[in-house]
């Protein structure tokens, strides 16, 4: 499956990916509404969290309403919003902390690869993000 790949050697920790992500999907600048998260710490390389679009996805398994499904065309795990009941079981099931919850929404915050052209990959000033298989 396709997913966002992160190069910690290139990332300088500007968090612009978070701002572009939250503004694209939620029309606001808010890192806590971003589907990708960059954690910066002093003197060590930044780390990232984002949905890894697992082949064998624990979130898909955990979803009681089949709202999360494997999208074979775009090779990703996708949320069918109409089916989601906002139970957050997917957030808990994700072993990578790649799905988030924000009190402003009734749906999980999860990367869908921007329908094939991820915004964060496009704007990363250090080319630290790419789409990989």
């Amino acid at each position, binding site marked *: 499956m396709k997913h966002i790949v992160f190069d910690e*050697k290139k990332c*300088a*920790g*500007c*968090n*612009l990916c978070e*701002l*572009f992500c939250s*503004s694209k999907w*939620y*029309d*606001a*600048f*808010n*890192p*806590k*509404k971003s589907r990708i998260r960059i*954690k*910066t*710490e*002093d*003197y060590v*390389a930044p780390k990232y969290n984002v949905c890894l679009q697992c082949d064998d996805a624990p979130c898909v398994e955990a979803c009681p309403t089949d709202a999360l499904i494997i999208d074979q065309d775009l090779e990703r795990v996708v949320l069918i919003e109409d089916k989601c009941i906002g139970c957050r079981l997917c957030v808990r099931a994700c072993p990578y902390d790649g799905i988030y919850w*924000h*009190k*402003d929404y009734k749906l999980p915050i999860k990367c869908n690869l921007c329908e094939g052209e991820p915004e964060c990959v496009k*704007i990363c*000033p*250090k080319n630290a993000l790419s789409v990989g298989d």
Partner: protein
Amino acid sequence: MVYGYAGKILHIDLTTGKIEVETPNEDFYRKWLGGNGFIIKYLYDEVKKGIDPLSPEAVSVFASGPLSGTLAHGAGRTHFGAKSPQTGLLADSSAGGGFAAMLKYAGYDAVVIKGKAASPVMIVINNDKVEIREAERFWGLKTIETQHRIKKELTHEYKVACIGPAGEKLVPMTSIITDTRVAGRSGNGAVWGSKNLKAIAIYGDKDVKVADMGKVKALYGEFAQKAKETLGGLSKYGTTGLPASINAFGGMGTRNMQEETFEHVDKIGGEILNTEHLIRHRSCFSCCIHCAKDFKVNKWDNVSEGPEYETQYSFGSMPAIGDVDYVIEADRLSDEYGLDTISAGVTASMIMELMERGLLTEKDTGGRTFKFGNGEDLLELVRIIAERRGEFGDLICKGTRAIAEKLGGDAYKYAFHVKGLEPAGHSPRAQKTMSVGYATSPRGGSHHDARPIEYGLPPEKRKTTEGRALNAFNTQNWTCLGDSLVVCHFAEKIYGTSVAQAHSDWINAVTGWNTTLDEIKLIAERIYTMERLFTIRESGKARTGDTIPWRALNEPIPSGASKGMYTPQKELDTMLDEYYDLRGWDRKGVPTKATLKRLGLEEYS
């Protein structure tokens, strides 16, 4: 609500524990914008004239601006302000990182702190929940460990700003640190120390909404493209590449300004740092330039973010240190203790010169000699200042002006300061813009009021005073506006060094206002003149305080590309006259009634 702003300002009294939220009206925001505008407004109105900067009555403010939390260049920067324990005037210093952006996400534009806690505390802001918590266990810790331990207790999602042991000991030249970024100048750290305030931790998950998202993204796109084309050097080297060119220009202060070219400049320059010491590039929040660098101290296997140019000057050429490991280590120690590297380095250099001249002896220093070029001597001086060690440490931690006053005699000639603040590494002798710029800065020797824009000009074109007052006026207005937005000054190669249409475009796209270039120029002048009123009120001086160090007035640069240059009093007077005219201040340097009216400051006349 105005777009871009949170609409709330937090007031915290550490004596009573009272926490209040103010919701200013739109006029307030449009008149003062943010950052330094908020700071000077609250300082002037809430600090009583003549108070001790380290007393409970003193006020400490930190602020974001309208662009904080958006995509604007360096819009994570935080502006900290107080009455300075170092100069007695405005302490106003800005740190990179993302602290102010987080403040905005928590729902506040600024925080105003007064009073004094009975024992060490930290302020914890989690969106609407604001608490003053006991912090005895962090007192005495250095800055990086303090932040790590606080984040471990609260979660790593928090942003923390804190002081180090130097701030706790009320060393006047102390900084506030957030991540590894520093609000270094003029002693904000000691003000927190005097309030028993060790740290502030913030977590926010609220939106920053803008009026025109499409326009904001278009402005960012233009900026990012231009940054790629013109700021490649900053991305690669940060400012560490500057020593080579500033040295060749003949304006790199050396041996406490005895010279302005440094023979070992290559040994502390960008090439060696970036080939032998670079670990990784770092960026402030929401900045595509990533000018910050983590460097390794190879000798001791330590890591420091920085040094940058000013520290290569203050811990490199000024004390004549030709081994970059010592420059990085002195920078690291200063960040850990929470010390301003510029003032500490210039003060250490003065000590070295005073000992060389016999004006200071081992009797004064507790039995130790400090020599130019000796890295161990430099590190020891940094520790003595930061720890305020003994009688000697208690004196020199107050900086060059205090040392000269204590020693008397000729010592004043070797005290490189303006209004009590040691200037950065942009020579007032080699650039007359910086002579008049430093002289009229409300902070003293700050390179973030007037900007050094004469680099690249040959000496014959730099000998004139013509146009220099205008340079200072324009660049001061531009940095002043930048500090109210709050954005990074390193956009100067893109937007120029005057207040520009681009600034107005950013403000309008974010806030939804229809500001014009004229309106934002007026805002910059208003804030700067308000800072002037504070300077006059607190020092009792206007023109008589607008001066530059003795060496800059009296001693020509002895060698190098700027040989022979200096700024005699007559030239400074000519520039000051022109400058005051541009500002609408009278020839004594006092804003006229008409000017105050033009700037909407009638109530202060």
